[in-house]
């Protein structure tokens, strides 16, 4: 009897030991073989990987880096350069981090920076324009001087622009680079042109430590929102953005998915075609239009939570140079009507449309179809205008066709996108929108031009920002040069087990984070 009992206990113990070790091993294998791979479904196409043309995308996917970088709370931080200072009013000296290696193991030196930037500027005329660089000279292996065309306090910020990223010059016979070698947390593995798919692998040599993901696959060009949504629901992609407008609630209720809606540096606004002639040359008319827009309703009922009504300033809340004391124009139909009346626009013939000196206030409201909310916003504004007596016809066209029509009487457009942080510096947006020499809608205010010119050569950050804040007060409150409507929020959808995504609102439209991992 004792024998059998020992045997039974023995076998029980044996079985127990086997079970425990089995579960232990399966835990181990689960941890070891958990797939640290991410497949991203991207809306836009890329087409080629030459960094001179596409380092913006490479930067968004953490392959390429620039001299400086910008943090999610909008601060310029060192990246490939440790520090920088001005050496003269139009020249900056950058000191490179001495421990940076390219993906192929070679060290980054000033020579690499100079040749990469020069090649990019030669091949891509728009980068030359954006960077405002006259000359780049190497001082020693880890120091270089950049001379700007004009006295430019914003140069360090410009170097954070995605297209100013640094790469090795490994051109093929025909002068194109098809295997970029850069410095970021992920390195280039392959690019399939036909299917527009980019394969990346983790960079073990990354100076801040390798990222958690082993590999990233980016599938570009999934333009149809429904197809994108079905791809993530079926698990073919793990990370995507901008599902159809109406899907938010359903996706939030899907147990296998994670939905993150976060701020971006973009928004919607009303732009006048020409403020130097009738009817928009009258400040009262512009203000009336600003009062007539029901921003809350647009943010809630059209953007369906993927946006927020603007307070009157199109710059993103949180920017250090943003003037947060803009009064703005809250929705007030009566005030709008009164202002129009004061400007001489009254409904004299009883047709519901105001007129002046025999001319009816009939305008065309243009917008483009690429952003799904725009046509609806335009139609909502059309009906809001009707209430104050403006008859607006909505036309949806391609962007270029719209800008051709800027000199039609009363031309107005609902613009989307409107990125204010392509370069993380106030000069980018403020100069682009309000400097009279650049201005495509003929806005001209000498005081604004003055302030902007002053700010260009003011190197003290606080004083600079203060100048830009003054500009904002003038253009938004005093002059009502443009009418901001709402901020655009990005809707990111990931599989439930994708963790560690830190939204960085600066990138147009988003960038992945090195801290992403699969649980």
């Amino acid at each position, binding site marked *: 009897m004792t024998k059998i009992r020992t045997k039974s206990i023995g076998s029980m113990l044996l079985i127990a030991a086997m079970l425990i070790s089995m579960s232990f091993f399966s835990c181990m294998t689960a941890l070891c073989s958990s797939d640290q791979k991410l497949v991203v479904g991207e809306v836009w196409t890329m087409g080629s990987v030459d960094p001179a043309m596409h380092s913006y995308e490479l930067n968004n996917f953490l392959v390429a880096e620039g001299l400086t970088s910008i943090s999610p709370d909008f601060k310029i931080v060192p990246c490939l350069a440790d520090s920088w200072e001005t050496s003269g009013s139009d020249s900056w000296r950058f000191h490179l981090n001495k421990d940076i290696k390219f993906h192929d193991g070679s060290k980054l030196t000033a020579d690499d920076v100079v040749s990469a930037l020069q090649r990019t500027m030669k091949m891509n005329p728009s980068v030359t324009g954006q960077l405002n660089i006259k000359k780049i000279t190497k001082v020693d292996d880890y120091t270089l001087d950049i001379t700007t065309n004009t006295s430019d306090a914003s140069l360090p910020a410009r170097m954070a622009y995605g297209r100013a990223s640094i790469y090795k010059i490994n051109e093929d016979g025909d002068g194109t680079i098809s295997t970029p070698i850069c410095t970021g947390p992920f390195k280039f593995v392959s690019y399939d042109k036909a299917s527009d798919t980019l394969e990346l692998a983790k960079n073990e040599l990354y100076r801040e430590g390798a990222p958690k993901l082993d590999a990233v696959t980016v599938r570009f060009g999934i333009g149809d*929102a*429904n197809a994108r*949504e079905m791809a993530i629901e079926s698990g073919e992609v793990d990370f995507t953005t901008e599902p*159809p*407008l*109406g*899907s938010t*609630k*359903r996706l939030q209720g899907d147990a296998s998915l994670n939905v993150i809606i976060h701020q971006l540096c973009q928004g919607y606004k009303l732009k006048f075609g020409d403020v130097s002639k009738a009817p928009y040359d009258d400040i009262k008319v512009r203000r009336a239009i600003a009062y007539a827009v029901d921003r809350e*309703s647009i943010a809630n*009922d*059209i953007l369906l939570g993927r946006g927020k009504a603007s307070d009157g300033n199109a710059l993103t809340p949180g920017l250090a140079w943003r003037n947060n004391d803009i009064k703005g124009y809250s929705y007030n139909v009566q005030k709008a009507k009164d202002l129009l009346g004061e400007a001489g626009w009254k409904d004299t013939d009883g047709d519901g449309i105001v007129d002046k000196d025999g001319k009816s206030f009939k305008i065309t409201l243009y917008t483009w*179809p690429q952003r*799904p909310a725009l*046509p*609806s916003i*335009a*139609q*909502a504004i*059309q*009906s809001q205008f009707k209430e104050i007596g403006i008859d607006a*016809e*909505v*036309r*949806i*066209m*391609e962007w270029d*066709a719209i800008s051709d029509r800027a000199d039609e009487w009363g031309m107005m457009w609902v613009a989307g996108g409107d990125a204010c942080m392509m370069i993380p510096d106030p000069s980018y947006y403020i100069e682009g929108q309000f400097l009279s020499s650049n201005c495509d809608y003929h806005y001209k205010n000498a005081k604004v031009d003055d302030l902007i010119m002053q700010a260009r050569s003011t190197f003290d950050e606080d004083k600079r920002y203060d100048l830009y804040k003054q500009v904002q007060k003038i253009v938004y409150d005093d002059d009502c040069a443009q009418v901001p409507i709402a901020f655009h929020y990005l809707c990111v959808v990931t599989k439930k087990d994708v963790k560690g995504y830190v939204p960085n609102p600066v990138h147009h439209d988003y960038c992945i984070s090195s801290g992403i991992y699969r649980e």
Partner: protein
Amino acid sequence: MLKTRNLNEFLKNKAAVIGLIIILVLVITAVLADYISPYDTDKVALKEKLKPPSWQHPMGTDQLGRDVLSRIIYGTRTTFELSLLVVLFTSTFGVSIGIVAGYYRGIVDEILMRLIDVLLAFPSIILALVIIGAIGPGVFNTVMAISLVGWLFYARVARASTLSIREKEYVEGARAMGCSDAYICFFYVLPNCLPPIIVLMTLSLGSVILSIASLGYLGLGAQPPTPEWGTMLNDGKEYLRDCPWLSVFPGLMIMISVLAFNFIGDGLRDAIDPRQLVIK
């Protein structure tokens, strides 16, 4: 041309008759839209947005709070007007070219036909997109864009008919009598082309409706807030799975109209003396 015998045979075809009834109902809807539509089609009412079908709104409301049923009813008018215009333009132009090519033959005929072949190869949607890109979107421009591509089949069919007719004795006789080419083309050739052309017109109405819908789906075509089934489908894209009524009803209307036109066209083709028919 069309004799009573043909008419009887057409009426025997049940599908064709059903198609005819459907189209008649739709045409009446289009004409009486102002009286039967329960709501205004372009009144934006954001608080009523995206409501599913109910007693107040049998087809629900769209993303701007407008009643879908009313927009479908008015959409009938827009869609039918547009398609009729396109078919009229394309048939007139195409038949003229086809008759000229078939009657005069020779190098003109060869070049025209090869050019038509190439144009037929061209993805018509791309051609339409480029044309609309050049002249801008909008109702009239959509008509132009589709017409510029749509006349090709008419030319082919008309040419084939012309080829078969020009050898006939009575045409020879007319020529001998000194009738001008134009006279012969108009009074002898044209009537002979008509039966297959009428069949083609009916069938094209269906495909034109689809083309207009496709252009509407791409965001070009009738401008908002004009209700048109294709642009309604486009608007519904962003709410496809969560508010399917925005897409299902316009899509069904497109399908039903195209079906009806095809049934009528098929019935016509079967009923008309087959020896006069030329296969596409």
